[in-house]
């Protein structure tokens, strides 16, 4: 029953809202809230009316969208890899964990955007700044969750490894990482959203390209529809990234949901 309702909702809620939005904004002649048809037309014209050879991306899109995406993916993936490795290492070593805990808890308490001006003095504006900002924003939740997951691996799993003489390497890859993976994924899920935020913020503050920068330009030109295209684009981007991530997570953690159900 519930699934039917939610399925139908998926089909109609978006068109209904769009139509309502269209009608009301046209009726109100609201300057700052252009109707969706205008936004979509601008979205198409600005970003997606390019030649088929460039998968319909315009030069504008190639200039702003691709760098944003590239930095997002590279920064996020790199930060996650390093943070998972560091988190698992810290979680498995009581000494390291005690030494670094205060430091980690200090840094993760600092709101990441606060550090963008500092980073800018170090890196200047441009890609290094965006990467630094994304890496910093993404690292802490992933690090802390990996640390937690690796630290509280069920003692009996580890004793089983000990009894059957599982080598250290295989203990790490076949037991500790999978056992910690539900926690690690919880951190990764948070980090996807954080990466987007840090990408945009750092583009607002120090960049000459990217979706955030393009939006600032539109603002200075009082080009309201273009500002909205950036918002819609980011909304879609966030949605797609999140959906892709959930797909991946569901695939990797099938066992976890199965095992939980029978508990």
């Amino acid at each position, binding site marked *: 029953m519930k699934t039917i309702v939610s399925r139908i909702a998926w089909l109609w809620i978006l068109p209904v809202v769009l139509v309502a939005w269209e009608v009301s904004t046209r009726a109100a002649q609201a300057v700052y809230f252009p109707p969706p048809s205008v936004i979509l037309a601008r979205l198409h014209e600005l970003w997606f009316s390019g030649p088929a050879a460039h998968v319909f991306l315009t030069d504008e899109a190639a200039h702003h969208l691709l760098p944003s995406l590239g930095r997002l993916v590279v920064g996020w993936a790199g930060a996650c890899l390093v943070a998972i490795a560091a988190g698992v290492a810290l979680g498995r070593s009581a000494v390291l964990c005690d030494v670094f805990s205060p430091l980690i808890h200090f840094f993760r308490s600092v709101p990441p955007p606060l550090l963008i001006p500092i980073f800018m003095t170090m890196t200047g504006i441009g890609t290094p700044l965006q990467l630094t900002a994304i890496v910093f924003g993404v690292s802490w939740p992933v690090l802390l969750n990996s640390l937690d997951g690796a630290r509280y691996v069920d003692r009996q799993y580890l004793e*089983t490894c*000990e009894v*059957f003489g*599982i080598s250290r390497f295989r203990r790490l890859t076949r037991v500790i990482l999978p056992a910690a993976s539900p926690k690690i994924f919880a951190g990764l899920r948070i980090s996807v959203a954080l990466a987007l935020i840090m990408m945009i913020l750092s583009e607002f503050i120090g960049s000459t390209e990217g979706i955030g920068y393009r939006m600032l330009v539109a603002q200075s030109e009082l080009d309201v529809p273009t500002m909205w295209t950036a918002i819609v684009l980011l909304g879609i981007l966030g949605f797609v990234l999140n959906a892709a991530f959930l797909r991946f997570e569901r695939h990797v953690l099938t066992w976890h949901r199965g095992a939980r159900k029978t508990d």
Partner: protein
Amino acid sequence: MLEISDLTHSYGAYQALGGVNLTVAEGELVCVVGPSGCGKSTLLRSIGGLLRPTGGRVLVQGRPVEKVPDDLAIVFQDYSRSLFPWMTVADNVSLPLRRRGGDRRSRAAAAVEALEQVGLPAAAGKYPWELSGGMQQRVAIARALAYKPALMLMDEPFGSVDAQTREDLEDLVLQVRRSSGMTIVLITHDIDESVYVGDRVVVLSKSPATVVGDLRVELPEPRDQIATREHPDFVHLRAEVGRLVRGMRSGEPAAAPEAEAASPEQEPAPAAPKA
């Protein structure tokens, strides 16, 4: 195979083992019974090298136990936390085989063979959580079997399955022992089970645990859930073990009301700092 002398272990100020002496010969199936909380798991963990006892000596195949001996496997009570839920049953069984050498194919074949031995040939591709509790414990036994240890330790392996499954698993252990000839130490708090399965029943006192009884079981083979349990020797041995577990000297009348009331399950051990 296994020699334990004057084994003591204290958790802080609380003494769990108070000098255990026990020798197990090659190929024997010894059941250890004792009142709940008396230190059975502590004894098993000391034999298995998972715990460093505070005193005494444990020799497995003549060598003092420092870490888990190579030729030893353990079947834990809590199968759901001992099998890895992210691996298929076949992977769970074959994971420990790497150190035994052989290529991937031969390891997989050994896993399938062990699963056949425990009656689960069709479960290889499933995940542990897709199986019932009894089946999961069979998988844990298959994993131990495939590992081909000289000594297998089982800590209340059938404590959390239903009565019917329990009987099936008891027979499985007997069959495994017959076909592999490995030495088995099985810990249980079930007196009937200890007599039914064991060649020998060792009774521990409540903690600090010492060996208060060591009985040889001479029942006709092969054992049978119905016939063996109504055999006069079985009935007699069971009473004997029951008396020992309840802290009575052998020959004393069982079920004296005071003795029942003071049964170790209800009486908290004196000065036990339960963690």
